């Protein structure tokens, strides 16, 4: 027992306690308690507390990394978990007690810590009042910590099944808005699975059984499955890969009718960020140019579409009179002109600044983004761009019959645009141009010595990024129909950059996955809107630490990462040889 009381475990316990308190003081626990994981059994807020305490035990009982000078502690993981969990429970309980004392002593805690509300305190105390609450926290800390530590004793497969099942239950509950929409869409009653926003007890049991059996069964057959795949002759494997791609596309085509209008709208936004991501990927991923002002081309695309097609725009009203009668001011006619304008602006913006070093280029592009956002908002250009009142009633793309503004239909517009952009990006990446970009990204001066005109290829990447970015703006104008300046802030540029880096720089599937995670997921947490950006920030930090190369890394980028390490080692060897 004495070994389990080591400094590391207590420290892990304190960190766990601070985490639980953080979740309480930020107001997450109270606000999440509004949503039941399993109706009338456990709320999401309470679950957060349990996960915090169990997590402490689980993390503390991690097999220690062998560190020189520290003899490995070989205590029983369950005991380590117990110590850590209890410490966390004691810390949390103590602070709650202190807060209660302060409040009872008349100190207005809420004027400082806004989230210390009666609701938060009762959730933390499981409704048992200050003393009872503190004891419960300590007890739960001990029990959950020990339980989580004991998990370490189980066989890998059993432990994996247990954790998988728990996460499956949580996911099933969080996916309630999607699944109930899908079930409604297929007009299947969902009352037995979901009720009042949470899983019913029956639903929870079924999920546990299905997930547990499924996972166990899947793990059991894993060796056989790997062999079967290895045996496949090469051409059969490429056939299967083609089939998989075909199936994926077919699924994407049918998807909106499966999930109903709200999720289709979410898919539309995800698709928009996939398109913008594909464009920015050419600039940052292929040519290695750090662009923090990509919203500029997005805004140009949207406003150019508005000016060229909306009957309210001055151009259509005055100069474009005859065009309007002949019906030329429609979406499809305006599209090529909008992209052309964006490409020209891309070249004008890019030419003078592409020689700048990475961070200088970042601030200059950020500047261009701010300049364009300010111009579209300004009173100076208000007569042309609508200023603060925005550009209204931009007609949806003809033909009228298709009603291309309904979420399920406009989805196909973005699907086509993304298809085009992905095709362009893919074809460019393994062509002469792609090679020039790759060489430039690795070593600019050597690439130039091999005959690559650095400026021309940077400008090409910038102009293509501008074109695809404006395509995103065109889609946005068609989807929303009224364009207001505050949709084009710095946040858009940052979101798109995060999507491509999170997904995996330079990788086309990476952009899709990145957009689904960063744009799709938060849409599910719409109820907890005020915590969306908090969770978004936490996800960014966590993923960048766990997988810096991104979720679906591009093979070449991954090699670049390792090549850089290999080269570093090699250069040390060379210098040794040369000097010896």
């Amino acid at each position, binding site marked *: 027992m004495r070994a389990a009381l080591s400094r590391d475990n207590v420290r892990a316990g304190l960190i766990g306690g601070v985490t639980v308190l953080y979740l309480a003081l930020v107001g997450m626990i109270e606000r999440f308690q509004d949503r039941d994981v399993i109706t009338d059994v456990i709320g999401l807020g309470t679950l957060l507390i349990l996960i915090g305490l169990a997590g402490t035990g689980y993390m503390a009982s991690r097999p220690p990394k062998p560190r020189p000078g520290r003899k490995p502690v070989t205590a029983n993981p369950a005991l380590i978990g117990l110590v850590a969990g209890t410490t966390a429970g004691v810390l949390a309980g103590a602070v709650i007690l202190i807060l209660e004392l302060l409040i009872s002593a008349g100190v207005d805690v809420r004027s400082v810590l806004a989230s210390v509300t009666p609701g938060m305190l009762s959730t933390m105390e499981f409704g048992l009042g200050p003393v009872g609450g503190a004891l419960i926290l300590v007890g739960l800390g001990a029990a959950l910590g020990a339980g989580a530590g004991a998990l370490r004793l189980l066989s890998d497969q059993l432990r994996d099944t247990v954790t998988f099942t728990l996460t499956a239950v949580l996911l099933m509950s969080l996916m309630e808005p999607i699944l109930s929409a899908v079930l409604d869409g297929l007009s299947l009653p969902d009352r037995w699975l979901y009720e009042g926003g949470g899983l019913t007890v029956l639903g929870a049991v079924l999920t546990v059984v299905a997930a547990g*059996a499924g996972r166990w069964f899947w793990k059991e057959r894993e060796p056989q499955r790997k062999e079967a795949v290895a045996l496949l002759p090469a051409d059969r494997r490429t056939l299967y890969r083609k089939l998989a791609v075909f199936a994926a596309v077919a699924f994407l085509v049918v998807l909106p009718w499966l999930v109903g209008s709200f999720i289709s709208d979410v898919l539309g936004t995800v698709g928009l960020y996939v398109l913008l991501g594909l464009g920015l990927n050419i600039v940052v991923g292929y040519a290695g140019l750090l662009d923090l002002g990509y919203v500029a081309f997005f805004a140009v695309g949207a406003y150019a579409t508005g000016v060229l097609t909306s009957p309210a725009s001055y151009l259509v009203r005055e100069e474009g009179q005859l065009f309007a009668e002949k019906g030329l001011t429609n979406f499809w006619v305006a599209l090529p002109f909008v992209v052309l304008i964006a490409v020209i602006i891309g070249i004008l913006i890019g030419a003078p600044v592409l020689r700048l070093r990475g961070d200088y280029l970042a601030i200059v592009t950020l500047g261009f983004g701010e300049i364009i956002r300010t111009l579209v908002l300004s009173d100076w250009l208000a007569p042309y761009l609508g200023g603060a009142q925005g550009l209204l009633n931009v007609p949806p793309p003809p033909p009228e019959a298709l009603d291309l503004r309904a979420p399920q239909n406009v989805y196909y517009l973005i699907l086509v645009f993304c298809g085009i952009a992905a095709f362009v990006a893919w074809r460019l990446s393994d062509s002469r141009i792609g090679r020039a970009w790759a060489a430039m990204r690795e070593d600019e001066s050597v690439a130039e010595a091999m005959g690559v005109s650095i400026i021309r290829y940077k400008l090409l990447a910038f102009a293509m990024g501008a074109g695809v970015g404006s395509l995103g703006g065109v889609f946005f104008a068609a989807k929303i129909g009224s364009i207001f300046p505050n949709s084009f802030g710095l946040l858009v540029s940052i979101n798109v950059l995060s999507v491509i880096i999170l997904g995996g720089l330079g990788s086309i599937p990476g952009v899709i996955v990145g957009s689904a995670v960063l744009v799709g997921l938060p849409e599910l947490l719409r109820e907890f*809107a005020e915590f969306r950006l908090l969770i978004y920030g936490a996800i960014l930090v966590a993923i960048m630490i766990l997988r810096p190369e991104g979720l679906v890394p591009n093979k070449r980028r991954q090699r670049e990462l390792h090549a850089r390490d290999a080269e570093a080692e090699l250069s040390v060897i060379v210098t040794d040889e040369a000097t010896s």
Partner: protein
Amino acid sequence: MRTSKLWRITLLLAVLALIAGACTDSGGVPAECESDAFGCVEVGAGDPIEVGTLLVITGPNAFLGQDSQNGVVLAADYLDGTFDQVNGEIDGHVISFNHQDDGCSADGGQSGAQSLVSDTAIVAVIGTSCSSAALGVADKILSDRGIALISPSNTGPALTEPSQHQPFYLRTAHNDKLQGAAVANFAYNELGARTAATIHDGSPYADGLQQVFADRFVELGGEITVQDAIQVGDTDFTSVLTTVAANPPDVLYYPIFVAEGGLITQQARQTAGLENTTLIGSDGMLTQGFLDAAGEASIGMYLSGPDLSAFSGDAAFYAGAFKTAYAAQFGGEPGAAFHAHSYDAANMLFKAIEKVGIVDGDALYIPRTALKDALFETQGLVGITGTLNCNADGDCQSTATIGVYQVETPDSLPAAPVYSEVATLE
């Protein structure tokens, strides 16, 4: 191999249970629902009446939307006559909410509206906070599905222009045309001002108000020296104030929100040349939050907004029971001015539901078009913000009493206005 066979059987059983649970169905539907173009909302036995809210609860304007949302929650609470944090009922069905965020932007309004439209149990929606989230976006999406949208704070004139108005859109906020003109009348006639300057923050609300003020002020014979604007999120307004002070006007009108409003008020007091310029703001700043942010600098300035004191009955209720309930549940003073309007909007909706709801055993059917018509027929409904009379274009404050208050102390909002004007939409 034996254990895996066991697992396979339990899996089979699970799937069977899934299908078995799916075979329940519901009884017949009353005649009115068949005839209604958009059908009825069917509230089953023991189910709640679901009301959606679409207000800005993220980003810099979050305090505005959160405050309106609190007003709606209090209205449902008071439905049973007491503020006991337990929602009242209509025909045995308790009121429940689906709160969504309008993000104060066009795309935020659209995804919020789409989320509400996909929930078929939604009876009606209180929202949006920002005009940019409604105009041509949320109002159209919800109207196309026959879901009534009642806004507590959209004041942009375009939303109820006959050419733009969506059939299912109403608002309890007053039209900017009334407030802007009322402030101009006050400045020109009461204060005797002949020159004025305006500052807006690039939002449709502020830009619309200052333009109406400027047009009316010129119409009365005054002169506009400077019309300038600031960036939301900025904090140093000394240069724009120096621009205004170059040709010192009698009145400086800046109908913006608390964050920038508080700073401009402080910095204006320190700007050489603006010593005898009267500062005027509007209902975006008519809150205790603004007085806290501006501090002593706000003493003596004027703020326009709904004249709450004109109606003796509800003013006492507003200042008394309502404010205490607000503080108890949400901690402290209201963050913005529109909680009163959202409270009235919710009550207007509940009255309409009671009027058109068809009870059939334990179930309740609410025909959507009938509900809309009932809302548009609201006449003489006494609320906190005044008497609601909805006209055909959805303006329920068509005859609103606009008050102009003078700030005496930063510790509390002025009780009664120094000037009040009953204005009617032509």
